[in-house]
Each structure stands twice: as C-alpha cells, then as structure tokens.
C-alpha cells in the first residue's frame, strides 16, 4: 500500500488534535462526539458533505431504513413521514442540515493523498496542505469501490458493462436484455427498475438474504431494532468474519412499502439464474446452485421470523400485533439456465451488483492483512487510528446511518483515552 508515497520530513503543516476524513454520516457523527468530549478536530472532505450520496447513487434510490430510524447523534427525524423512506435529495438535505450544526471546521474540496504515522500521531497530506495530528478517524465509507469480478474485463466489446456507481436510470442503457449480477439489495432493486423499463432482465443469484419489508404490520427494521438484533456487538458473534461478509438484505425503500424478493421479481418477468460462475469465450456460465441458495435463504428467513415471534411473546407484543403470517417459499425455475451465449445478442448490458469495498489506498501504515483488508478491532485500527461505518464494525447496525451514533461514542471515548495516555509518554506507533 505504501509504494510510491513520498514522505517529506520537513514541510509546514497545520496542527490539530484529530483529523476526521470524510464528511458523510459517519464522519459527522464522529465530529459530534469529539466535540462533546472537547477534542479539537477538523473534517476533511474530498467533495461536499454527503459526497457519495450525491455522486455515486442511482436516481430512484431510497434508504432501506424508515425515516424514524434515520437519525444522527442529537438529531432525530422530525419530518411528517416517519414511516417513509428518504430519497437521495432528502438525505443530502438531512446531512447538510446536520453538518451546519457542528462546531468543527469542515474543509470541503480537500482530497487526502496520504496518511502515515509520524511524531506520536499522524501526518495527513492533502491537495490543500498538510496536517499533523495525534489521531485520525477514517470515515470514508465502506462502498467506495465497486467489487467487480475479473471476468468483467473479458466481456465481448458489444456488451455494455457497468457498475451501480455509474448507473443512474434505465434509459441510460441500450435497449435489449440486461444481466444483473448479484441479488442483494442493489441487485434486486436494479433488476426490478430495469425490468419495469421494458428491458428483459436476467438476474444471477448467489448467496442472499431474504427479508420481508413488513411483518405482522410493522416494518422489518422495527422488529430488528426492538428485538435488539441491531445492537448485537462484534465481540458477541461466533463468526465475525462471516457476519461482516453478509450481503445486504433484499429490501426496497419505496413510497408504498412493498416486498422485493425473488418471487416478486419472477412475477414481474425477471428470469432467475444461478450465480455467474464463469465466462468461456462469449458464453456465460451460471452455477447450478440456484435452488440451494434459495432454500438456504428461506430457511434463514423462517428462523429469523421465529426468533422475532419468540421475542414478541416474551416482551408482551404478541397480542398487540396481527398473527404471524407464513411467507411462501421462493419459487425457482425447475431447470434454470446454466449457460448463455453473448454472441446471440440477447444480453446487451451486464450490470455488476457484486458488492462494494472501501478504498484505503491512501493509507500508508502496516494495518492491512494479506488480502489488503483493513485490520481492526471494533474500529480500533492502531494507536490513535480509528475507522467508522464499516459493516458490523462494532455492532450489527454499524454500516447503517443510525449505527454511527453508538460507534462514534465508543470510539471517541477510546480516542480520548489514547490522547490522555499518549500525552504522558509521547506514544509511538506500535
């Protein structure tokens, strides 16, 4: 990660106790808690507040969490539709408004080039000058880079290939068939929107997380929050690596709440195939595992709903809510398509909804594992170095907007402790 970075030793730099990199919801929440603890800091933002939400999301996107759940430290949703789902414009306004209330200086249009450990703290090099600081909080987001499989490069030239970061609306795609690869939240939403636009969609489905929008008259997020599942801590789960890899649930935020599972998509004419397993010449190869993945998702869903029912009985909600409704099993084709020749012209576009990853290429410190992933213990990366907003970072809700408050409170406390200790012995980078 460090190759090529220059490390000038003596260059004038501004000094601040803590630099927060990124002014999205996670960086803003951290700023709030640092201010509460009286820790002076700056927020550095490559673009504007909520930059990714402004520039890297499709037009129809709404949050998967209802408005009542969309909250930041000290600021709850106060609008007229607590059960609604924010679109991008509304969310950007919400974050802008929150940022205006913060006390810390916000440096927008400031691109961080390199960060490295130095002088018992960190050196932060930006395109608008350097900073010296004791602590750094990385709040640059978990979805900066689309994770696209290598086979994307081998697609024939007549097939359009794009990622959700570049996708805005169906009309931008050529007429004709679209293969959406991946059936997590992004994949199912885009498959639905594109199919409705009249372009026939094939959806390649691997491991996925099925979830109803509403259950027994309440939003699924109401259940997950009230039953305490979103507060489950990173040191409480059996297999944390697996929990962190979990795909986003098949949910849609819309004006009228609706389910967006594989059954809903099949009913609209979307063709389901197995995971995209390979590309041999011009021939796409789909795994024969579709039925297995659908069955596994159904079993997990049933277990989740049973747990929620048990919670409702134990906490006196059972009688107050409508009776449990069994959900139909996922219907998959008897013999789904295993191969499709792109030379046939049936598929004009491939949309890679295959996940995202963070971009830490600017971080010049020995904090990565063999596969280049950031090593951290609940967001504590190294002495004085913290992360925010990663999937299941400290809690199941860590990746969500409302998850930032508790994480920022914990990590700002840890950060304050580091500053106090490092102040005595001029701590060094371990």
């Amino acid at each position: 990660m460090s190759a090529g970075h220059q490390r000038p030793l003596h260059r004038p730099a501004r000094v601040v106790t803590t630099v927060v990199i990124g002014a999205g919801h996670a960086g803003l929440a951290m700023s709030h808690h640092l201010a509460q603890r009286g820790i002076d800091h700056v927020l550095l933002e490559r673009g504007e507040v909520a930059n990714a939400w402004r520039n890297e999301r499709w037009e129809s996107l709404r949050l998967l969490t209802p408005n009542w759940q969309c909250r930041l430290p000290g600021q709850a949703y106060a609008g007229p539709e607590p059960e609604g789902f924010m679109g991008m414009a509304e969310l950007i306004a919400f974050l802008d408004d929150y940022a205006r209330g913060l006390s810390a200086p916000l440096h927008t249009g400031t691109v961080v080039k390199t960060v490295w450990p130095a002088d018992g703290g960190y050196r932060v090099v930006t395109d608008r000058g350097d900073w010296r600081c004791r602590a750094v909080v990385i709040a640059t987001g978990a979805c900066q880079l689309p994770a696209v499989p290598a086979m994307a490069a081998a697609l024939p030239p007549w097939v359009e290939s794009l990622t959700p970061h570049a996708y805005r609306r169906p009309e931008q795609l050529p007429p004709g068939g679209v293969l959406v690869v991946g059936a997590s939240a992004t994949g199912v939403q885009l498959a639905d929107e594109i199919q409705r636009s009249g372009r026939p969609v094939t959806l390649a489905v691997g491991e996925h997380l099925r979830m109803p929008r509403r259950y027994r008259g309440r939003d699924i997020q109401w259940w997950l929050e009230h039953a305490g599942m979103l507060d489950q801590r990173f040191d409480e789960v059996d297999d944390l690596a697996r929990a962190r890899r979990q795909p986003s649930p098949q949910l849609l935020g819309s004006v009228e709440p609706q389910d967006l599972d594989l059954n809903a998509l099949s009913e609209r004419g979307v063709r389901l195939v197995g995971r995209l397993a390979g590309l041999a010449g011009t021939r796409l190869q789909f795994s024969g595992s579709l039925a297995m993945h659908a069955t596994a998702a159904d079993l997990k869903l049933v277990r989740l709903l049973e747990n929620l029912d048990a919670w409702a009985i134990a906490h006196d909600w059972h009688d107050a809510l409508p009776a449990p409704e069994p959900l139909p099993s996922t219907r998959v084709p008897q013999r789904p398509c295993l191969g499709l020749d792109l030379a046939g012209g049936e598929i004009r576009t491939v949309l890679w909804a295959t996940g995202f990853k963070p971009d830490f290429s600017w971080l010049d410190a020995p904090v990565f594992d063999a596969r280049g992933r950031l090593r951290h213990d609940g967001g504590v990366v190294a002495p004085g170095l913290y992360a925010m907003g990663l999937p299941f970072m400290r809690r199941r809700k860590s990746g969500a907007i409302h998850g930032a408050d508790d994480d920022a409170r914990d990590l700002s406390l840890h950060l304050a402790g580091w500053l106090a200790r490092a102040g005595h012995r001029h701590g060094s980078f371990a």
Partner: protein
Amino acid sequence: MHTATQPIDNGVNVTALLGAREVLSQAPAAARFTWRAHCDWVRGTHSRIAVEDFHGLGETQRHRSRSTFEADHPEVFAAEDHGPTPVEYVLVGLAACLTAGVAAVAQHRDIQLHSVKATVEGDMDIQGILGMDPDVRNGFDDIRVMFEIDADASRADIEALVAQSQKRSAVYDLLTNPTHVKVAVK
C-alpha cells in the same frame, strides 16, 4: 435443538477442523491442495485407478493405504462390467462429500445424528456421448440427492444441515460450477 445431556458425538473432530482453519488463515499457501489419481487401461472399457498420494500443507502427503478402483461399463453398453462407470464414481463422490458435510455441520451445531442415508441419481441422455446429437450434452443434465436423516433435531434444523453441507461441499461445487480442465499427452 436437543435435550440430551450426553455430549454430541457424530465422530467428527470439529475442534481440529476449526483449529486448522485458524492455522491456515495465517499460512494461506499451505491451504493449496492437489489431489491425484493414476489410471491404467486394462482392456476394453475396463481400467484401474489408484489413489495414494496428494499434495497439501506444503508437501507430499500419503493416504494410510493405497486404494484401487475398477471402472468399466455395463453389459448394456456391450462392455464386460468389471466395475462401476466413471460417472457412477462421480455420484459416489457427491454422496460421500455431502454426507461427510452433514456429519461435520451437525457436530458443529450440537445435533446428534442417528442415521444418514442418501440416494443419488443422475440423469443422462447418451445421445451426447454417442455423438448422435450435438445439442445433447455428454454429462448429467439433472442430479437428485434424497437424504433420509434421523437426528435429534427439528425438520427445519435438518434441512438447514443439508443446505449448509451443500454450501461447503467440494463435489457439489465441482458439479455446479465450471472448472478449467486441461488434458495433455506426456
């Protein structure tokens, strides 16, 4: 899940498997295995296959003993039937792999097994291998596995065992996903 106070014993050492996972996460190169089979033609469609050594954990490893397998084709194929057909060995592999997976997952999930039986069937249109119709594939076009499992667990838990076993099965993966296969002459 189970009410017995006896420790769950399906004969799978899950602790060792989890330990291996932990060790290999620190040394990913050692996790690369090469499995090997040596085949000698005997006569007609009859051949004999031996399995003895493989590569793993960074060095050549040996099974406790050499296993040999006869492979032939049945008399309806005008052959002498000295052993199962190669595709039947594939079914053997799938059944054994999924069954081992069921046992290991059950051990991990504290489920006591009493019996696990699997019947595996593969459908094939032999017009493919006879070169009669280029649109018919050579291999199986459908494979069905039917498990009968007696265990101290609910039906949903047993179904989840079987689902997880497929998710972790090497042979299931081999059959459902394409693999680079190169055949050369020495």
